[in-house]
């Protein structure tokens, strides 16, 4: 029967939006990576580029929100389609905020290097935390691409680890600041970078929660004990 392709166009439209979400995720991921690389290398031009590229992320958000509205108007989604659209609308916001965080990281890194301050030792830990955050983001995007609940739950679990890492970095930085108050400005900038990384983890976790909502139809947000404070 011809019905097998009765909703081909609908599937194509949905697929196109999902692909663009993943593209946005890829862009955001590269933003984080370039920011953290810039922090290490002090390549001001590269950091400048990250800051500039945020407008691309923003543009993608606006475009994807438009696509989502159009799909709602065109297709009146229900059931899993509606959950998908709804989750995409929310995910896009998180991705854009991750983009913002990456921009902030780049801005801080640029400030540190412009001032010519020697990077503090916790910068290494920051890099490690950043890698963890990138991994979380990538895995939540993967989970979204494959609608994989298991992977999404892994991301949610990992967020606690990232939070712990953030707190460790914070403690370290406080020690540094206390030991040498001249480092306070730089340390504070690194605090902001670490905070951004911690937030990226939070956003990745949100996205993972949306994946579970898409697949299972259950809202798993806020269902466990309150997250550890920032």
């Amino acid at each position, binding site marked *: 029967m011809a019905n097998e392709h009765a909703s081909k166009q609908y599937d194509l439209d949905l697929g196109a939006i999902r692909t663009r979400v993943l593209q946005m995720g890829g862009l955001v991921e590269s933003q984080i990576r370039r920011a953290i690389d810039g922090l290490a290398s002090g390549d001001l031009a590269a950091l400048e580029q990250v800051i500039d590229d945020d407008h691309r992320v923003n543009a993608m958000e606006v475009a994807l929100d438009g696509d989502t509205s159009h799909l709602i108007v065109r297709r009146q989604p229900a*059931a899993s389609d509606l959950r998908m659209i709804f989750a995409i609308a929310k995910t896009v916001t998180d991705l854009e905020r991750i983009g913002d965080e990456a921009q902030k990281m780049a801005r801080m890194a640029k400030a540190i290097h412009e001032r010519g301050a020697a990077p503090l030792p916790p910068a290494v830990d920051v890099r490690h935390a950043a890698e963890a955050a990138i991994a979380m983001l990538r895995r939540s995007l993967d989970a979204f691409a494959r609608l994989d609940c298991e992977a999404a739950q892994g991301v949610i679990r990992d967020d606690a680890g990232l939070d712990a890492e953030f707190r460790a970095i914070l403690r370290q930085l406080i020690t540094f600041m206390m030991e040498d108050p001249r480092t306070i400005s730089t340390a504070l900038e690194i605090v902001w970078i670490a905070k951004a990384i911690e937030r990226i983890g939070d956003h990745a976790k949100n996205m993972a929660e949306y994946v579970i909502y898409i697949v299972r139809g259950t809202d798993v947000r806020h269902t466990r004990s309150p997250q550890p404070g920032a």
Partner: protein
Amino acid sequence: MMEQLLATKAEARSLSFYYGDFQALKGISMPVHERQVTALIGPSGCGKSTFLRCFNRMHDLYPGNRYDGQIILQPDNTDLLARSIDPIDVRMRIGMVFQKPNPFPKTVFENVAYGLRVRGERSRRAVEEKVEQALHDAALWDEVKERLHQPAYNLSGGQQQRLCIARALATDPELLLFDEPTSALDPIATASIEELMHDLKKRVTILIVTHNMQQAARVSDFTAYMYLGELVEFGVTDELFIKPQKKQTEDYITGRFG
């Protein structure tokens, strides 16, 4: 919405139905909750209209039809399909609104009064009061009060359908059946009928067949999805449309049915 807390107005129990040799309904069991709107959806030929028309024994009008199973009407626990029950008595309790507006070729007033006249009501005062009340309830009074004694055919399609609703309401039915009541109407008339249904459910239990999924989502509290004469899924409308339990339901609702 707590499904468990609602009273049941009617309940199909292992209901099967045959057109001659063809089995159109296959062992359907589901409740119709009191003062709620229950929608029946499914692709053409899934048996949703057939099911609806069991509730007022409409199939008895045509030869070769056979019921199997029960439809229990509360509060008196009557089996509507029992042989000992006269279909006319069933229809006295259960009103019906059809796919196309079908006012009788009489005046507006006489259309609404028809059910009362059939029941032998002779008091003119009583008839007039009931007619006015029914027209009020069908949100039609203001539009027709000046032309109660003009032919019903002069009304617009949407008004005719509301007249048919008033006609059904005049005899205080316990359960009101709607058989795709807006499929012959334009979107504006459709909206007014849907609105009316929402108001009516404060007083009467409603069972509606619709081939328009969005309509089911809009007007109903409970939805049953049927396919090939079977009940695939029954549940609270919001849940069924956002998180259906069965793959078949999901496919139909998302338009991926093949």
